[in-house]
């Protein structure tokens, strides 16, 4: 399968290692990965902040960039959620029905990483090795917009050397919510505190998730407290092997 990587603006700019891990993993499984150069952002921040007009060119750019690929993968449940559940809506409200139809077709071929691995490529054991104590936070948009269910956990359970600890109240939001973290910073911090408490209760050394945005939030809090717990994206754990450590 020829797979196009949608790195997402956040991974491209701030977390390039997550993009590298996604490519390394898929190539290790024998697939060709392309990185279409015209890509920028899915526009979710604009859409969720009330700027659908400003998001329309980004929706169009996404469709133009990825139209020619069989499968599109992003290491983010949230960005894929936006592509799948918002792009056509934004196009329709911008009175571009043709774009809406194109967006719908492309959305049906756009997958979050664990969906691509389990549903499209049919693998649950990707041959990873990650000798650490890990807890998994199922991000809200993976869980409730994409309904990825236990796909990430099925992948994680097959990682050699890893001890996977269940996160208490795992389905509770970490409080990020995009601009929510700025507009309602106090409430966001209160939610983050409870999420960090749950993570620390597991005594895990690593907190993982399928979204760099949520990890930036949880990791930012854990780092501020000098907690000694680090955040690692699901793609990075799955890309790890005995050779890479």
């Amino acid at each position, binding site marked *: 399968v020829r797979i196009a990587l949608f790195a997402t603006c956040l991974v491209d700019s701030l977390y390039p290692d997550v993009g590298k891990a996604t490519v390394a993993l898929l190539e290790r499984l024998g697939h060709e990965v392309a990185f279409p150069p015209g890509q920028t952002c899915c526009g979710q921040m604009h859409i969720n902040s009330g700027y*659908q007009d400003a998001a329309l060119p980004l929706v169009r750019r996404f469709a133009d960039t990825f139209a020619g690929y069989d499968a599109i993968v992003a290491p983010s449940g949230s960005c894929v959620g936006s592509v799948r559940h918002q792009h056509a809506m934004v196009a329709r409200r911008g009175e571009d029905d043709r774009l809406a139809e194109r967006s719908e077709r492309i959305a049906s071929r756009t997958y979050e990483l664990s969906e691509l691995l389990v549903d499209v490529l049919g693998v649950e054991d990707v041959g990873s090795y990650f000798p650490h104590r890990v807890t998994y936070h199922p991000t809200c948009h993976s869980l*409730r917009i994409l309904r990825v269910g236990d796909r990430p956990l099925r992948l994680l359970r097959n990682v050699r050397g890893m001890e996977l600890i269940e996160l208490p109240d795992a389905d509770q939001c970490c409080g990020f919510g995009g601009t929510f973290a700025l507009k309602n910073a106090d409430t966001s911090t209160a939610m983050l505190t409870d999420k960090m408490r749950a993570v620390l209760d597991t005594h895990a050394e690593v907190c993982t998730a399928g979204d760099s945005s949520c990890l930036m939030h949880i990791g930012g809090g854990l780092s501020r407290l000098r907690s000694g717990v680090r955040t690692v994206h699901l793609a990075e754990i799955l890309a790890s092997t005995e050779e890479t450590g």
Partner: protein
Amino acid sequence: VSPHEPGSPELPWAPPGVGHLRATEPFPVAARRALGDTQLRRTIGNATATIRTKRASVVGEVPDWEALRVAGQAIKNRTMRDLDRHLEQLEERVVERGGAVHWARDATEANAIVTGLVRAAGAHEVIKVKSMATMEIGLNEALESAGITPYETDLAELIIQLGHDAPSHILVPAIHRNRAEIREIFLREMKDVDPALTDDPAALAEAARLYLRRRFLSAEVAISGANFAIAETGTLVVVESEGNGRMCLTLPNTLITVMGIEKLLPTWRDLEVFLQLLPRSSTGERMNPYTTMWTGVTPGDGPQNFHLVLLDNGRTATLADEYGREALNCIRCSACLNVCPVYERTGGHAYGSVYPGPIGAVLSPQLTGIEDNASLPYASTLCGACFDACPVRIDIPSMLVHLRDAHVRSMQERSRIPTSEAAAMKAVAWSMATPVRWRWAQRLSRIGRIISRLMGTPGRITWLPAPLSRWTAARDAPVPPTETFGQFWARTRGSQP
């Protein structure tokens, strides 16, 4: 405003200055104060966790729960399509059976109608069934200013009324009060209460029972809301747990029901779906203890005068909005409040409206017009827990996104000078519009590397200028890498435009 736009003279919003739909301060300000109240945090955290667990267990035992949700949504959507016709049918049936029907455009009209009816009955006090509609329009204040004393009979509403307080939850209005506080309120406000009253729940309930019993036996007029009204039969339905509602609905000679026009169901059969969905979603019970239904007046049995006040107060304006009208499907179960991580931490008062939580964040701004509750649609992380819990599948997250867009548009229409946020959003969208601009913007973000170095915090950023300072107040920010993914790809796999 054109005649068919919400908020026009033909489709008015709920008027200001009456009732309890408008926040007096923005949500983040009120939330900050609530978050600092450790007792409140504990009380609401415990209460919502308890109801969440109960709900999950009784919903889990219904094999066709998802089918019931779909049915509930379909019935509500179908009803809203022909609401005008159903309402006229309801009026016809109620009048046929000896009741009177009054149409109230807004809170002011509804309050005037009810006050006039109570006066005409010659009463100076009324007993009340727990009702969101009468809280919404501020009926108690209107009655008091007309010299009529309203007595709330629902235990939680009684606690609110005696405490000169405001409800903070749809189902459990006094959820922010613990039993020690309730004991204090009773000792302070109830004449003749036993001074040795303890904070044992049974003792508190007994004190309320003794206080209320006299009112039930002497009241001439009762005022209620309605959970449902059946258009084909003219039947009104109230579901409750305590039995105090039934006392009000059966003992006095005159009954006045104030009902939002969206509470309607077309047929008797439709009720089957909602009497399964509502109790499991709200109190976490398989069935609510008391379901009272009445149709007009039954000679010699129950109230001999029945008045139904149909309340608009911004509902028709909401119905006119294709993306927002689903909020009218709400059956006031509170399931979305109990699962909302924001509500759980701030409580209901922070929302400034009688409708708090996720449903309040989409309902209040639509009833009042977005400008008057502009901060509410942003009081959510869009985590989606509310949609999963909603028994009629209201897509609250999508509606919040729609209302944020409506707010931004309204700001743009009112002022040609963009807000700093609008300017920033435009700038970001502009920079993302082409890959070349995007590379330049990414280069700009390297300023973060300089900040990290200047602050002496390698590997993390502990300070950023406003508004990003709200992030770094409690969290570190990541240091931008020396090479973006795009640059890495270009360097290792070939060129990029």
